[in-house]
């Protein structure tokens, strides 16, 4: 018994041990559970010093809608947009009685809904704009972007046509005068096969363009297209030889003329129909990519002068709504033929030529505009497209200080129309439906481009947001092993969104540090898990169709740089490849 007494704890000791265990459990519950509920972002958490009664607090509002893909912008556009100088006198031509809006366009099928709504190109009283909204519209042809911009700046036109990339270039100068600051209210279309890149046969993917010569029209959507692809593929624009022409037509001519010569040009960025004619007529050439696969890359919009928008908000809403009605009208085939004729009259074309162009653009209806202007989550929305363009043009040294997207984008009209419910019947039909497929099937053809993304995976982990670990291997709260993983995924999401119609392969890799020590199977599994975690994140955060992605684990068989296979940090990576849509 005496021995028992010596071995056991005193009652006081037992109390201490009991309190210690209770304390540990309490601390565990507090740090492991309650702290998580408090949110990870330090700045958004409750202010220190205040005590919070967790039982009474509703951290998240009840969500009746369930899971939604849309997160609308919360700010008020007017508060961000640069105000028109109150002292300034509006600087545009305007006749109060006839109320004719001057809307110049270039040669592009995307403008068809406007001509359809306007019942022709000249100002007339049969126009929807007149009948419903009380103003007329005069649609003219100003094909040269510089001339169109000058007409806009001089107040001879109220509207400036353009692709979003053109707007990025023109905005800084136009904003020097608060009256000519461009306001963008509506997207007209996505280029859908109208732009494309044609290459010599030996070029299999964008990667092969390194060191090659590319010709295109400078400061045009072509320039944005090719350089955006180059940068996505990890090629510096300076690693390619750029040849400039004044127009896309001349670029195509230069490419064809150089065929078989010593200074042969390897690739051309141009427009339909040239991009389709060249591979048919010039041997040894093929299409590398068109906006049929990069179908959310080039957006056509129109901008209005800030002073005009300020003076005539009703007309702006009328233009937006009228164009949506034009899109409705074009559903009717006989009306579409009529509209093509009107367009042909304006361009001096044969109506057959206009009909051939119908496939080049996809008109964006109200639902798609809402996605573009108002959904902050959409990886191919206005904000992200604008930012990507700014990034590409900054890399090229074309702009110094880009204008922020919210200085030109105004979603108030779109929000207004949504409230009215006028175009609730227009659904977003521009979503590619992907059939389940496999990596080996997709891989049969060379990818358009491959992007190597380096998420620095923690050894043995496939978690993108793996925390950092201390020397003992314990995870450190509120840390990420790779602090850039979020922005890396954003980059992938934007690329995947630009190539909305394309299938994307995600291939995971591991390093070869334990070669010979662990079974190949386990390695494959880890690399596959890495690819899958990227896919999962993309699908969950950006709401992509899961079937858009195929995944593969390459293990350690394909080191990033075959010349330096021991560079383990470089080898723990994921590669994203964009493949042509299967239907083609």
């Amino acid at each position: 018994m005496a021995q028992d007494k010596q071995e056991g704890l005193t009652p006081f000791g037992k109390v201490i041990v009991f309190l210690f265990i209770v304390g540990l459990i309490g601390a565990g519950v507090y740090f492991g559970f309650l702290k998580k509920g408090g949110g990870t972002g330090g700045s958004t958490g409750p202010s220190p010093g205040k005590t919070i009664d967790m039982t009474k607090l509703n951290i998240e509002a009840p969500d009746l809608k369930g899971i939604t893909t849309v997160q609308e912008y919360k700010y008020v556009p007017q508060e961000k947009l640069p105000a028109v100088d109150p002292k300034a006198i509006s600087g545009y031509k305007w006749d109060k009685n006839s109320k004719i809006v001057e809307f110049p366009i270039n040669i592009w099928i995307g403008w068809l809904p406007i001509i359809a709504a306007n019942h022709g190109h000249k100002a007339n009283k049969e126009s929807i704009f007149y009948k419903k909204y009380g103003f007329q519209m005069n649609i003219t042809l100003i094909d040269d972007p510089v001339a169109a911009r000058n007409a806009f700046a001089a107040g001879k036109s109220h509207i400036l046509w353009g692709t979003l990339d053109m707007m990025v270039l023109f905005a800084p100068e136009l904003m020097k005068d608060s009256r000519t600051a461009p306001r963008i209210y509506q997207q007209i279309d996505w280029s859908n096969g109208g732009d494309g890149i044609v290459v010599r046969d030996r070029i299999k993917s964008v990667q092969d363009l390194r060191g090659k010569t590319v010709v295109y029209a400078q400061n045009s959507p072509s320039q944005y297209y090719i350089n955006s692809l180059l940068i996505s593929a990890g090629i510096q624009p300076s690693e390619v030889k750029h040849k400039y022409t004044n127009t896309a037509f001349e670029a195509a001519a230069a490419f064809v003329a150089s065929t078989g010569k010593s200074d042969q040009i390897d690739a051309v960025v141009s427009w339909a129909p040239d991009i389709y004619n060249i591979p048919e007529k010039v041997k040894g050439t093929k299409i590398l990519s068109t906006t049929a696969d990069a179908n959310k890359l080039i957006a056509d919009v129109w901008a209005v002068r800030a002073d005009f928008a300020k003076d005539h908000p009703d007309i702006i809403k009328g233009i937006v709504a009228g164009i949506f009605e034009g899109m409705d009208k074009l559903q009717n085939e006989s009306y579409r033929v009529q509209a093509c004729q009107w367009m042909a009259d304006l361009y001096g074309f044969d109506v057959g030529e206009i009909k051939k162009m119908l496939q080049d653009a996809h008109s964006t209806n109200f639902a798609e505009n809402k996605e573009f202007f108002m959904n902050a989550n959409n990886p191919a929305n206005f904000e992200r497209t604008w930012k990507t363009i700014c990034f590409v043009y900054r890399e090229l040294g074309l702009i110094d200080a880009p204008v922020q997207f919210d200085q030109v984008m105004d979603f108030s009209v779109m929000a207004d129309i949504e409230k009215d419910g006028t175009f609730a019947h227009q659904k977003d039909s521009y979503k590619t439906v992907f059939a389940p497929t496999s990596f080996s099937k997709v891989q049969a053809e060379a990818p358009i481009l491959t992007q190597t993304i380096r998420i620095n995976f923690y050894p043995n982990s496939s978690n993108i947001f793996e925390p950092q670990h201390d020397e003992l291997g314990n995870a450190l709260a509120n840390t990420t092993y790779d602090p850039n993983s979020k922005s890396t995924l954003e980059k992938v999401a934007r690329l995947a969104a630009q190539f909305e119609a394309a299938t994307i392969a995600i291939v995971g890799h591991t390093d070869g540090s334990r070669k010979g020590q662990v079974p190949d199977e386990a390695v494959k599994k880890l690399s596959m898990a890495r690819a899958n975690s990227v896919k999962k994140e993309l699908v969950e955060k950006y709401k992509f169709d899961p079937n858009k992605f195929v995944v593969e684990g390459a293990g350690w068989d394909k080191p990033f740089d075959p010349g330096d296979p021991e560079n383990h940090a470089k080898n723990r990576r994921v590669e994203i490849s964009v493949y042509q849509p299967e239907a083609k």
Partner: protein
Amino acid sequence: MKLPAFFKKETKVKKIKPVREKPAREKPEKKQEEAPPRQRKAFQLAKFTGSIFAIREDVSPFTAFLLSMIPIVLLVIIWTLVTWGPVEQRVISSIIMPSPKEFVQAIPKILTPEKRLGAGILVSLARITGGFLIATALALPLGVLMGSFSKFRAAFAPIMIVGSYIPIPTLVPLTLVWFGMEEKQKVGFLAIATFVFLLPAFVKAISDVDDVFLNTGYTLGANKWHIVSKILFPIALPEIYNSLRLGFGVGFTWIIMAEMIGAESGLGFILKNAQSRGADSSIVYLVLTVIVLIAFLIDKLWELGYRALFRYKEAR
């Protein structure tokens, strides 16, 4: 070497006619010159306008300089007025035309190393000179032949006429197909544009040589080669020189077009690039000014050359 018979016949036909008609033209002009003094007494305004509209009056270099300043000053005043005040209150938007102040302030912008203005000037000058030399090498012999021998003229006249009416910008894509995208295209384009200007000018210069000189030549027993080389060409030379001077300027007017395709440097490239990417309009105007200034300076050099080469013309 004997020339074919038709050359002989042709020159004979041309010799005789138009010589005596000329003096008649000069008389009425002299009469007009005498007119102002008569009106002077009658009306004061007439005195003023008369002194302005004095025909073929001698103007001292200083007065000429002063007078030449008037339009420039006027232009600057108008320019200042239409671009006056804050951006929002101007007659012409700053995007389309900068104010004189903005124009001057933008000078450092085009002098940055990235703009490569100095290199641009040299590259453009080299292209213009290259095009000019090729055009001259082709147009001069052909022009002399056409100006001297009517059958040559008849044969090539249609091409010459078509050439002088051809819209030069349409040649941009064509030269691209013919010469590719490199220097050959730019020089080739400028050569064609200069050629179509020079050829008719050379033909005219030779054709305008007065028949009196030919007759004198024939009287002194000159053969056809002598007529062309010792009479037609030397007498036409000052006029040919003037055509060359203007022809060199043609290159400057087309340099922007020439550098539209495949250029990575040059004044036209800098200007076009600034314009199409919507950059500061001052840059566009500054490059234009540089082009005009260089063209002006080179024209002055041509003028000096003219004085040195053709003193006999100056003396007259």
